């Protein structure tokens, strides 16, 4: 796994990559967390595909401005980063709030996005509100792996309270449902069947709103499908790429600025 650092708006953005045939799949993490939760998935998806996971500015290993960035700024930073690492149109794979960032990027930078994979897309407008989301998060917790808590704590330490709160507030404010109908790229929506943050009817609504959306449900798993079911998710992504995304040339096996192995 390569650690790749690229400058965006004068600040280093850090990504991890396992090279493979194109198109490149870029994983975008959820609110307050970082690429850590995607590492097991990257290890499965890499080699099969050119697989990346990137820390958004201010999260994980990426530096950010002293103030929390809004959703739009995060999406723009992601698009700028795609330009900085010189990737052909990519498949953006969002997890949770990462779906909101990916969708915003796809709506405003469609030429950079070949397809979307939305895993556990937030935020269900039927439960827009801090308390309702908290209750859903609590109901979802028993379906997650305990080992993820340590990763989350490390992520929260990296991000700091202001950025965490800022990211959750952006998640609540963002109207993803208004943007989905404007995404014409192929899109795969993935939901864990025990996901209490993303109920089935909302996952269906997301798929319905996407002009070229398709829904896949993974059995016996909660919200964090990439962490708990990396093999199954990688299989779904491979199928999706084979059937929905026009083949492109093999991915470039070297990054713009390598700095050794991943943590």
């Amino acid at each position, binding site marked *: 796994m390569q650690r790749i650092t690229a400058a965006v708006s004068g600040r280093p953005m850090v990504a991890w990559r396992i090279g493979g045939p194109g198109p490149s799949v870029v994983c975008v993490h959820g609110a307050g967390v970082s690429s850590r939760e995607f590492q097991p998935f990257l290890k499965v998806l890499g080699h099969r595909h050119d697989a990346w996971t990137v820390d958004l500015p201010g999260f994980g290993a990426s530096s950010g401005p002293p103030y929390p960035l809004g959703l739009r700024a995060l999406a723009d930073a992601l698009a700028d980063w795609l330009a900085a690492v010189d990737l052909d149109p990519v498949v953006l794979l969002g997890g949770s709030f990462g779906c909101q960032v990916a969708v915003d990027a796809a709506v405003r930078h469609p030429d950079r996005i070949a397809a979307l994979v939305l895993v556990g897309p937030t935020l269900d407008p039927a439960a827009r509100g801090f308390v309702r989301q908290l209750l859903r998060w609590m109901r979802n917790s028993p379906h997650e792996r305990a080992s993820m808590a340590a990763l989350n704590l490390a992520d929260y330490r990296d991000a700091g309270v202001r950025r965490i709160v800022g990211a959750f507030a952006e998640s609540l404010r963002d109207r993803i449902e208004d943007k989905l109908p404007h995404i014409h790229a192929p899109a795969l929506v993935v939901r864990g069947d025990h996901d209490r943050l993303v*109920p*089935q*009817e909302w996952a*269906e609504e997301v798929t*319905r709103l*996407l002009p070229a959306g*398709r829904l896949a449900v993974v059995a016996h798993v909660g919200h964090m499908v990439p962490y708990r079911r990396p093999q199954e998710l990688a299989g779904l992504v491979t199928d999706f790429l084979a059937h929905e995304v026009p083949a492109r040339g093999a991915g470039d096996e070297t990054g713009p600025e390598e700095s050794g192995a991943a943590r």
Partner: protein
Amino acid sequence: MKASKAVAAFDSSTGMLRALSRFLAGRDIPAIGQVPAALEIPLSALLGTLNRLPRPAQERAYAASGWAEAIPQRRVGDVRSEALAAWVTGHYPRRRYPVIFIGSTNGALVHLAAALDAAWLPQTLLLPVRRRGVAPDDPRGDLAAVEGAGRALLAANPELELHHMHDPNQDRLMIAGMTYFRVKWRRLPDAYRRFIRDHLAPGGLLVTVDCTLRWPTTQIDDRYVFQFGALGDATPEEYPQGGPRVADLLARYRAPVRHWDPPAPDGESPEAEWGLQPALLNDLSAFAEQHRLNAHVLRFDTPQRLSPAVADLYRSWYADRGLPTGRLLAESFLLLEPWWALRTGSVPYWALFGTETARAGLNAYLDTTDPYDEIRILLFNHGTDSIGLASAQDWQRTAARARKIGVLTGVDATAYPRDFASLVRSHRELSKIRARYPMPPPLNTAAAKALTARDEIDWHPA
């Protein structure tokens, strides 16, 4: 004896009667109409815990639920056909209907009736009768044990015909402690006559639904036949002759035998659950003539035949209303939702059962029609791994033919076909679909005549 006590609650006729009558009253059917809507969530949780029991305990619970709703043999002679008919007509709101269907039980027909704002009066009802000490694989023993009760029933009800049905394949859990008495009216009962006279709109249509499906039977007495096996994936020949699939089923259920030894069939009769006993047609013709009613016959050869026709009818109805036509709801046996089908803009396709044959029927329909964006499949759980039952994964593959969303609705794939909570969960999940449409005015009766253009369906004036 009260008709509501005598008639099975979990049967095709009663399930469909509840679904249609509630639809005509402007209501959906939470928990297949068996409990108040407010109890849906606790009931779902309760049944969900049943799913966690070991399989033998689940099967005993299922068999016990059947026994609990059956009537003791000594009370069978107290059942009165007129009380049954009055109980049926009592389901419907007291108003005029442009069409009244009468005859065969059929899930697709329920949707046709819902579209036309029509009532349906079943010819057949199931009376479950308690019986002890007979193994499911002993059809002769079953017949001997309840024959007396059958004769008592017929002696008290000269207008009824009794189809004693014994299916150790699909009903093997249910028949552990009870017997299936399916009764068919040979003559129009008074309550049906009154209902038609009082509730058919002037100039309305009286349509006899004639499913001509027949099955080998043994004549026991006048108006009394014994039917071994029933429509599903196993063939009428497989039941008495046996074969690898029968032997495999019996081995899986650790039965002491590897084939069945039923009474020898001596003819064919209308299939006990779905077929029309044609004696009713004569009485209906005379009644229609006497009251100068506009009488028609809707005829098809097997229950599943009507499903693609009604699905296409709904699809073109949605198109005419300017609604999306890309959502399919495949229903199963008595799990059907005419109200939610229309509210969610879903094209209803009724599957008889969860068998491979039924799945092949749905696949064949999907082969011939424009692709659907969304396919939802409900699966009725009958508790038994019967011959030719398609697995939840098989059904999921069919659902995956949707362009966008292909799901099993209310199904716990790991528990199927012993997922008791699905009876409640199917409705709950269906009612959560977010894209909804207003309830339309009824379809014009003339529009339904589109069915007459189909070769496989015969709809003509009587």
